[in-house]
């Protein structure tokens, strides 16, 4: 990656956000963390436009489902959303909110890097 793709990590577990930041910064990404959907929207409204959103589903204040609905109701552009969940069936959960991709917790850092690369590459190409 030649540019610095922006990754927004939305997760109420600060340790996970910290780990994701560590891993993705090593890959040359710019990483921001929000502890729930509302904080993520605030960040986006403040002008920090992500290239991909890594979204946990089970969060206080505003959960993943509500975030997707609100975010997608806003005017484009919309970054691809990757549902990252520890639920029984992360894939089905992702489908249920029409997410672009999914990642089941706990995951290998390699698959984390892959999923981000996949979506930021296409995002950057279409810019």
């Amino acid at each position, binding site marked *: 990656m030649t540019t610095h793709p922006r990754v927004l990590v939305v997760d109420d*577990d600060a340790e996970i956000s*910290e780990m994701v930041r560590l891993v993705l910064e090593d890959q040359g990404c710019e990483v921001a963390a929000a502890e729930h959907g509302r904080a993520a929207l605030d960040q986006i409204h403040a002008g920090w436009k992500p290239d991909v959103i890594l979204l946990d589903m089970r969060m206080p204040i505003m959960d993943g489902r509500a975030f997707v609905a609100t975010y997608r109701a806003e005017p484009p552009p919309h970054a691809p959303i990757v549902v990252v969940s520890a639920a029984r069936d992360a894939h089905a959960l992702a489908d249920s909110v029409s997410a672009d991709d999914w990642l089941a917790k706990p995951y290998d850092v390699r698959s984390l890097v892959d999923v981000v690369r996949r979506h930021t590459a296409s995002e950057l190409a279409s810019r």
Partner: protein
Amino acid sequence: MWPSPRDEGSREPDLLLSSILDALVDCLAVVDARGTVRYLNAAWRRFDGDAEYFRIGGDFARACALKFDAGESRDMLAGGPRRIVTGRRQRLEVECSWPVPAGRRHGTATITACEVAGERGAMVQLLDVTERIQADAAVRESEARYRSLVDGSPDIVFITDSASRMIYANRALEDQTGYTAADFQMRQQDNPFLHPEDSERVAQFIAAFVASDRKHSDRIENRFITRSGDVQWYSSVISKIQYMGSPALQFVVHNITEQRKAEQESAARYREAREAIEVRDEFLAIAAHELKTPLTSLRGFAQWLATAVDREPCDRARQQRALRTIDRQSAKLARLIEQLLDLARLQAGKFELECKDADIVALVSDAVESAQARSDRMITVTAPPSVRACIDALRLEAVVGNLLDNAVKFSPADRLIEVEVRAEPADRFTIVVRDHGIGVPESDRARLFDRYFQGAHQRGGMGLGLTLSRDIVERQGGTLAAEFPPDGGTRMIVTIPITSDVKGSPP
């Protein structure tokens, strides 16, 4: 006026009248004032038979004595014509019987006044009622047999006539409902016995059955109200029968209250079991979620470290942070697993406390220290220098740790968490954990200690902490209570007697 072909002294016989009288089925005799037979029709002569006790010009009373069975009624019959002639009575009815080769026959004699050759006389009309009496007896006998059968029946049996009046009920009706047939001399659908919510359905069912060409109805289940006001469930079958010679409806009514109760209870148990399975499934999903979360960062940091360790230049600060996180997350996993094991032991009834003399203040300080290390929160402790009690120190420390974790989870990062230890009065100690967070909504308070319960806040966790904490405290003879001060936040209060007997296993 009477045709008397065998009587020389009478007037010309009236042949037309004679042939009419001879055609009668009833036996007819005419007796004059002296008791002499003056006329016998053909039916009487057939009735008299070859013996010919009765003859024109013969004595009626003597013939009666020969023909009929002895007894009071025969005497009344024999003297009947004389009583009619001399007395003021116009009419007399007498029962009588007479022997025949095949047994005995029964009749009813009606004696009425008439005129014979210008004098007052009597006409005797005899009707053979043997068949009718036998039929009545048969009806009475079958009815008696029916009653003896149904009276002993454990099911209620009652019969209604065509006007829906109850004309018979067995003993079970009174035994089971306190009512007797006499209480139901009204239309079926108006009676107080039938549950008002069922009466229309029952009335329709009966009407449809009566209109059908079926002899027995299907089963109908409905409620009856006993005299004492109890509601009982019954299952009935209605049959069309002949009772006392008239069409009637027979109801056989079986009490199914117990059966229904048992069915409902087993349905309720089934529902509870299903709900318990659903709750457990839900819990397993949550537990898996809770275990996967620390595992995610643990694995991520470990894998990152594996690549970062060979990299130049080495970022020692970041690596150390990663290692500390791995340590914290593995400790968190261990605590979650301990909770799950405690739950399993609790459910298997194998949960045992290991009580030893311990310093409560030191124990609370340890719990506060590790909670602070987990959360970087300001936690103050107010306590006397030392409080000693015989308790399961590890588990009580877990309880305090759980209360502190909740306080951290449910209050803003800049708010103080206060912990207090008291040993007053001297027979017990109290630990209070007070936060200034969001508290617990009124609607959730009753379920706060329920197993697997999670408030609407969705802050994670397995919903086990408070359940297990309360169990641990109660097993040591103590209480765990929640208070919600008017200025917000939550006060969790653990109180445990110092001198109490320690309960190690469930009662």
